Every structure is written in structure tokens, then in C-alpha cells.
């Protein structure tokens, strides 16, 4: 079902639930993986994905259609992820690198990456990035999202996004090149 059909049906109380069910089915995988890449843990990603769709439900009537529906949903998901990571630090009084260490530990425990030393180094390097820069990197490198769309999702200018991605790639390459360091340490500041 096309987005405009979903939105049209959502306006009518009789077809609202059906339309929203279609919307969830259409975008659930993209939202889940977008969130999962940021929080690594499946249970956290599951909770956040549901929260994202509940927010979409609450605000869909106000959706202005200035942006694409998916961009709008992605933006909600992005904000949820960043708020989650920020609140996690506040809640447990954790400094930036401790949350990073926790994410790395979860990643290393994931059987999907076991045995691939280079890939593990790469993922550790990505997790060293500040949250917003990691978000930019994920959107560009893994999702191959155009910069213009990324600008809508993040509310940042295209120029700033290009610079942020360029810096992220350099940091990752430097880290992986010199990554004999077993312990995690972060010198990044948001």
C-alpha cells in the first residue's frame, strides 16, 4: 500500500487500525534495524521500535506531509535512540566511554560477529564514535541514504553531514589501522 493511501485511510476511524497495521508492516524492519544499530541489544531495540510506532500513531494525524512519511518516521526513531542513550548515561551516571564499553561488550557477545577480527575492529571503531556521528555514519554507510534525506532526518545541514561523515570515516580507519589496543577508550565528545 502506498503512503498516501495509508494516510488517507488513517483519516477515517473505520479504516484507521487497518491503515496503521499496514504502516507498521511496511516500515517495521527498517525502523528496527535503524534502532538496533544504535543500541545493539535486541531487547532495547524491541522496546524502542514499539515506542516509535506508538508515537507515530499518536502524531500521525498532525503529519503535515511536507516530508516523506518514512523520513518522518526515521526522524522519530532517531530521536528515540538518542534520548535513550542519553537517558542511560544520566540514569546510571555513566560517562560516554562506559556506555560505549557496554555496547562493545554486547556486540562482542553477538555470535554474528564471532571469528571475524577485522569486522570486530570495525564495529568497535564505529561504537567509539559519538552518538550523533555514529548515527550519521550508519545512515550513510549502511543505509546509503542521500545526504538531503539525512538532513531531513537529523535536522542538520547537508554540508555539516558531509563533514561529519568524512571525519567519522577517518576516525574509523585510524582506529582499525592501529587497533591492537585491547581495552576500550574514548576520547570523543558529543
Amino acid at each position: 500500500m502506498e503512503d498516501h493511501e495509508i494516510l488517507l485511510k488513517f483519516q477515517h476511524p473505520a479504516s484507521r487500525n487497518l491503515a496503521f497495521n499496514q504502516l507498521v508492516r511496511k516500515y517495521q524492519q527498517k525502523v528496527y534495524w535503524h534502532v538496533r544499530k544504535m543500541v545493539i541489544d535486541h531487547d532495547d531495540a524491541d522496546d524502542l521500535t514499539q515506542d516509535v510506532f506508538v508515537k507515530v500513531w499518536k502524531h500521525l494525524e498532525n503529519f503535515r506531509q511536507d516530508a516523506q512519511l518514512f523520513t518522518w518516521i526515521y526522524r522519530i526513531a532517531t530521536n528515540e535512540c538518542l534520548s535513550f542513550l542519553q537517558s542511560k548515561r544520566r540514569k546510571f551516571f555513566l560517562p560516554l566511554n562506559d556506555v560505549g564499553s557496554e555496547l562493545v561488550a554486547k556486540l562482542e557477545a553477538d555470535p554474528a560477529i564471532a571469528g571475524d577480527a577485522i569486522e570486530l575492529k570495525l564495529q568497535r571503531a564505529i561504537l567509539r564514535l559519538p552518538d550523533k556521528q555514529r548515527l550519521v555514519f550508519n545512515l550513510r554507510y549502511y543505509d546509503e541514504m542521500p545526504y538531503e534525506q539525512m538532513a531531513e532526518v537529523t535536522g542538520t545541514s547537508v554540508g555539516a553531514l558531509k563533514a561529519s561523515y568524512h571525519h567519522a570515516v577517518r576516525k574509523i580507519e585510524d582506529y582499525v589501522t592501529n587497533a591492537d589496543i585491547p581495552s576500550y577508550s574514548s576520547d570523543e565528545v558529543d
Partner: protein
Amino acid sequence: MKPSFRLDQHPRRWPQPLSSPPAGYFEQLPTRVMAQVAAAPTRRPLLPAWLWQMPAAVRTGLASTVLLGTFAASLWLNSAPTGPAAQPVTLANVPQEQLLNYLTNEAHLTLLDLAELPAQNLASTQQYLRPSATELTEALDAQPAEETTIL
């Protein structure tokens, strides 16, 4: 010297190398989400949906018109004369003869009210009623005895 790592030469794994969610997760997720939203009502929009569908320029123009209209209306209402302040001026401009006609015909005055009037100002009775001696005699004769005593 170590060879430099180049990201563009590294085979990209997609999605990020993370284990897949449990089997059947994406089949169940919509049902779980729908169960949650059933308890979460949609937020009612402050403005109707058709208004949001208008171009931004039209919405801005409409908002400006409404704002200006409200301002003009409030200005007009504030400049209009208010009742209590204007009342003395208005009454002063009404001829006394009309006032007396109103009071005698519309205000349901009792004979007692009329009886007290000459006591306050005898000239006013003569000025406005201008009764002749014959009319006065006839009026007095027509009154019941107990009411004529107060005159």
C-alpha cells in the same frame, strides 16, 4: 609499517553484523504494536486536517488575516461608547415631555408615585400636564373617596 585500513576497500556487511531477531519477530511485532496503540488514543489536532493540507503560504496568509481581524474587532469594540458612561448624556438629550410620557404610559407608575410628584415640584405638574380646572374637578370626582384624601 602496518598497512592502512581503507573503509572503501572493506567488504560491507549489511545489515550491520548483528544477530537476527528471534524467529517470527516481525510477524508478531504489528500485533504487539496494535495492542499498545489501542490503549493510546491519537492526539487530536489543534486544527482540522484540511488546514494542514493547504500550502504554507496560504496558511500564513490565513493566520495573518485572522490576527488582523481580531485586532480590528477588539479595537472597534473598545472604541464604541459603553453604556454607563454614555447614559447621562443620552438622558439629558431626551425632551422632558417624552420622558414624562414614557413614565406615565410605559413605566406602570402608581397613583402614589404621581401623588408624590407635585409635593416635590408643583410647577412640573402644571408645566407638563397643563390641566384645566374642569379636568381637575372631573378627575377628582372620578377617584374613590379613600384615594382622593391623599391629594
